[in-house]
């Protein structure tokens, strides 16, 4: 992170970090527009854009009709015509009607026009469970999109990373899907430098150094993995935790450097296992560093069911926990 140590910081939670960064982007560049459902008068259902409409006007903070395909499609047209749109999908679960616009249009605009047209835009959306959101307010969507060249995908876990990566996403010349774990919105607090800075997309972060096991995760589960790793330290186990931060592009160097040191790899994600992000990481490590491994690669992911249910036991069963993660880590360290 390109931040000088003398720099002032402010304590923020994740929702405040998103809000602060969007606010600066709106203030610093009048090409920036925000469009989505309830982003204006209501200021977004999590109050992320509260009062933006008063300050920046209804023309730049656009309350759209309930029409997700066109929210993304209109943002694409704006981007092609020189604006810097930030489209919001109210909940990640609502993104499916916009699938073609993201996968078929935004990701291919530069490619199909041989570089003559581009699509510099950000699609922000809150995802993830553990909030009693049931089938339609809990989903992880990243695996459905990370297969697609032309898209970039970011899923930060910490307030300072949110600011740096959202700034980078806004500056990026290509479409970026920016995923915000909604359970971390008010749960996670941290120090955020007050000045402008960016964090490069595709750069992971070692959030806890260790020697016996590499844990790779992103989003809410980074925090739980840290809790688990800290708990295991009391048992004498030394676990390294990597926060991916970016899902596409992904940081190969950080993962391989760590795996070559610890010789064991556990991938943890909230999304289900089959065809998930962990599958790609496993394959890459198997291709590049098989003979550095002292144990099989393990994935600790959600069960292979369509969604978490509303009733508390169903959600609890779906979600992992620091305890379940510690169990998975302990087993692999001892392998």
């Amino acid at each position, binding site marked *: 992170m390109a931040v000088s140590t003398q720099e002032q910081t402010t304590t923020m939670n994740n929702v405040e970090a998103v809000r602060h960064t969007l606010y600066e982007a709106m203030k610093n560049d009048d090409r920036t527009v925000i469009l989505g*459902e*309830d982003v*204006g*008068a*209501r*200021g977004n*259902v999590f*109050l992320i854009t*509260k009062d933006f409409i008063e300050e920046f006007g209804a023309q730049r903070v656009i*309350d*759209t*009709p*309930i*029409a*997700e*395909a*066109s929210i993304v499609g209109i943002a694409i047209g704006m981007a092609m015509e020189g604006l810097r749109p930030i489209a919001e999908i109210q909940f990640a*679960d*609502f993104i*499916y*009607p916009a699938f073609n616009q993201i996968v078929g249009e935004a990701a291919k605009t530069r490619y199909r026009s041989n570089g003559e047209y581009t699509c510099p835009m950000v699609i922000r959306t809150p995802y993830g469970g553990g909030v*009693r*959101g*049931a*089938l*339609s*307010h809990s989903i992880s969507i990243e695996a459905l999109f990370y297969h697609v060249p032309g898209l970039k995908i970011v899923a930060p876990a910490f307030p300072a990373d949110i600011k740096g990566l959202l700034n980078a996403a806004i500056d990026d010349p290509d479409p970026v899907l920016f995923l915000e774990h909604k359970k971390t919105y008010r749960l996670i607090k941290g120090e955020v430098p007050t000045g402008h800075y960016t964090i490069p997309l595709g750069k992971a972060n070692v959030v806890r150094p260790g020697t016996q096991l590499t844990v790779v995760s992103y989003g809410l589960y980074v925090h739980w993995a840290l809790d688990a790793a800290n708990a295991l330290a009391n048992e004498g186990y030394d676990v390294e935790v990597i926060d991916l931060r970016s899902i596409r592009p992904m940081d190969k160097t950080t993962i391989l450097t760590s795996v070559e040191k610890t010789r064991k790899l556990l991938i943890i994600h909230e999304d289900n*296992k*089959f065809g998930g992000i962990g599958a790609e990481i496993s394959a890459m490590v198997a291709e590049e560093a098989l003979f550095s491994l002292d144990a099989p690669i393990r994935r600790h992911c959600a*069960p*292979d*069911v*369509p*969604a*978490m*249910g*509303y*009733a*508390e*036991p*169903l959600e*609890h*069963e*779906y979600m992992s926990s620091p305890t379940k993660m510690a169990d998975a880590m302990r087993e692999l360290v001892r392998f």
Partner: protein
Amino acid sequence: MKTDSSVWNREGLSDEQLVTLLRTMLLHRLLEARGFQLNRQGKIPFASAGEGHEAVQAGAALAFTRGKDIFFPYYRDVGLNLGIGLSPYEVMLSLFGRAADHSGGRQFPHHYASRALGIATISSIIAAQLSHAVGAAYAMQLRGERDRAVLTTFGDGCTSEGEWHESLNFAAVHRLPVVFLCENNQWAISTPLQHQMAQPDIWRRAEGYGIPGRSVDGFDPIACYAAVREAFDRARSGGGPTLVEAKCYRYLAHTTDDDDRTYRSREEVAAARQHDPVPNFEQLLIDRGLLSAASATALKAAILNEINEATDRAEAMPYPAAEELYARVTADAHEPWRSSSPPHSI
């Protein structure tokens, strides 16, 4: 709703049916009040309400033929579901997320489904149910089931979705037996009608699809019954789909997670309260001699009693077991990886 007219158009409804309308409206209102109470008491994480939709939903439910018609609701249809036969206990099971709930506690509250009653399963995704409704109507038409039709409902915001358009268009092409009932409550969470569409009469879109469209006072349960009934009659007689727009109002915030003071004035809500359909219809029935003030009070007491019983009974029921998370993913036992027997020669 006008209660002062000397000529009373009952639309052929019997005294008993009119009292049923009121009963459904009262049950709707009191049951939802209970949901908000339970949320404030910390007993359930979420509730939402259709306050202001009581008249349109009770009226539409009365036009629905149980055992024949199929209903594809949206998530603000407690009154309609009650009116076509869902019990307060079933509503409470949904709110509490209990194992005995129709979805086994999987779905968000108010996402009822009951095959026995003809209520289809829905998601929270706006407009997704409309194409399902059209497909069900196509099945009825294909099988030549003359006396059946599909009712599907949605809010004003839903009309902006592409799938809304695709569904109306397809139903019109094939003249399918569907009733599209828009419960226009003027607000889509925080988005008022004028930010949802450039002209406020949703029924006027019908002409573009080549189907009849009509507008009705959504605070008048009798008029709503008549409008939906007429649309059902058309559908059942092979006359194709109808778009009915009932203009009503959303008195409460979108859900318990929303604060509507951030985007609309108290004055606006208070002005709409002047036309509250529930006390108005109660007064109408009293004025017309169908009900005494005392019997109205008794009716409410009986409903409250029913709600109390339903609440206690549902709350006492168990949650689903954790292993229920894995059940009914596909028809067979669900495993993404298959272990096949080793290949062998014949």
